């Protein structure tokens, strides 16, 4: 057990070894090569990969930003020592913004509704075209990312200032802006998920889709936050991490995976029971072959395994049990997005070196940005009013 005097003098700074950075650059290199090979060999598949990985990591960043905001609003004490990790993950947003703007060059390949002249032959798309058109689409991308980046930067600035100055005013300020931020996320991420994933099939709509995407983002962000905390602890940082913190993190994963399962089922159940042709088409398109398997794989990976494995108190307090669940959930997010995107963009199951390489590339970039932000400030915040509570957290 550490004393508070240890904490006062502690300056827990992350230094990234050059070897690790080289590894990340290597991963990014693999990603670039796979993407390039994809664009030459199979552009549709390459753009599908591009969208999937972009969305994958932006949902981690937004989920982490939301996680951090929730901790402030709930005035949660336990997590305050680890608040640099969600902050660092949210710092990926500016990079993601550039990638999403670059999607301009692949619009016609990815989004069926953006094809020239389709509004003349397709009445439904013509009806939706005041909303689904390329200029407005990118206006929304710019607006959403602008709002997110401004809010994330603002909260980060207050958090760093608190380190230097101290006092309660920074905490109250963070809480106030967090309250604004969750409303921004609620509205903007809803529309963002509709734009990026649901509009892949513009004839189809589902009221709960955006809520489900948001819960998926929150779930997988909580998972990755836990993963980063455990890794940092293993390499000798964040010495205050104890079994109670782990239990709290795994409660987040457990709770969110139940909510995810609930939303996923609610969407499917209503569509299956209502049996309306324009709604069932989505699942009919995705019921054959490997997509039919993926439908069940999603449920098993994202709900069943976390639900079963994190239920007992013993497993939800031990790294040995949490780490495999985290890996399962990270795969689960990939398969979920694959299940949404591939039938509409690639039209068949294609999985190979291009997919793995692109994922590795984006993972390397994400890790590089996150570790880079982590090195910029003390890993443990100073002067946070709940810091002491977080260090001695026990239940």
């Amino acid at each position, binding site marked *: 057990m550490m004393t508070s005097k240890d904490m006062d003098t502690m300056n827990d700074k992350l230094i990234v070894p050059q070897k690790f950075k080289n590894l990340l650059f290597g991963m990014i290199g693999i990603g670039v090569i796979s993407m390039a090979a994809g664009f030459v060999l199979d552009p549709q598949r390459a753009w599908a990969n591009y969208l999937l990985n972009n969305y994958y990591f932006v949902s981690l960043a937004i989920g982490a930003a939301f996680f951090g905001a929730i901790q402030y609003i709930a005035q949660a004490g336990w997590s305050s020592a680890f608040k640099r990790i969600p902050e660092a993950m949210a710092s990926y947003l500016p990079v993601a913004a550039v990638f999403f703007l670059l999607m301009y060059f692949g619009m016609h390949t990815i989004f069926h509704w953006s094809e020239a002249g389709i509004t003349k032959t397709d009445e439904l798309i013509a009806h939706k075209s005041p909303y689904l058109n390329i200029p407005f689409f990118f206006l929304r991308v710019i607006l959403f990312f602008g709002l997110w980046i401004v809010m994330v930067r603002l909260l980060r600035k207050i958090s760093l200032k608190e380190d230097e100055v101290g006092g309660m005013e920074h905490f109250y300020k963070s809480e106030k802006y967090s309250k604004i931020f969750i409303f921004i996320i609620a509205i903007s991420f809803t529309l963002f998920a509709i734009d990026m994933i649901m509009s892949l099939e513009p004839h189809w709509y589902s009221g709960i889709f955006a809520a489900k995407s948001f819960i998926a983002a929150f779930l997988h962000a909580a998972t990755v936050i836990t993963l980063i905390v455990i890794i940092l602890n293993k390499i000798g940082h964040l010495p205050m991490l104890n079994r109670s913190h782990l239990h709290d993190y795994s409660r987040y994963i457990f709770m969110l995976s139940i909510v995810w399962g609930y939303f996923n*089922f609610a969407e*499917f*159940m209503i569509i*299956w*029971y209502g*049996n309306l042709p324009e709604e069932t088409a989505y699942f009919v398109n995705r019921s054959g072959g490997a997509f039919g398997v993926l439908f069940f794989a999603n449920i098993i990976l994202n709900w069943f395994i976390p639900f079963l494995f994190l*239920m*007992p*108190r013993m497993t939800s307090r031990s790294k040995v049990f949490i780490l495999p669940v985290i890996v399962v959930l990270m795969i689960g997010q990939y398969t979920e997005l694959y299940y949404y995107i591939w039938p509409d963009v690639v039209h068949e199951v294609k999985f190979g070196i291009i997919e793995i390489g692109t994922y590795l590339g984006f993972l390397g970039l994400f890790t590089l940005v996150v570790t880079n932000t982590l090195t910029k400030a003390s890993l443990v915040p100073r002067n946070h009013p709940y810091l002491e509570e977080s260090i001695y957290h*026990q*239940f």
Partner: protein
Amino acid sequence: MIMNKRYLIGVFDDEHTLVDAFEKALEKGVVIEEVYTPYPIHEILTGMKNKTNITTAAFFFGLFAVIMLLGGMYWAAVVSWPLHFGGKPFNTFPSFIVVTIVATILTITILTLLTFSVRSKIYPGKKADIIDIRATDDKFIILLDQEKMGMGKPEITKLFQNQGATEVYEKDANTN
């Protein structure tokens, strides 16, 4: 009802003196029968080593409920009395799930309530078995069974008083 049990009772004013006395007593090998506090205290929960298995029981109640509910609905809708509803198959598994979730929660709640009641011997209309009424307000009580305390009465009395007990007294279990 426990006949002719004689208790030694230590009364404490606040959490810290209670926890100190509790840990000191455990260290010296005193066998503690029970601790009554106005609110739950972590150190007491871990120190008493009273691990509950009711969560495991609840899991198996849930498993039992899921199997019985799905089996029951399958039997009713497919085997015993198949009916056509708007072209749906007889085995409408997704619509069984909603009922299963809700009824499983209900089953777990009722069965764990019953299990808990049986294990702690309480039933509706039972008279409350309160050792010291002040433990329901703001006092902290350590209860010792005089027959198996692990230490002499004077030593324990002295130990509690040194640790800040406001009162140490004896009481018969059946003289409520």
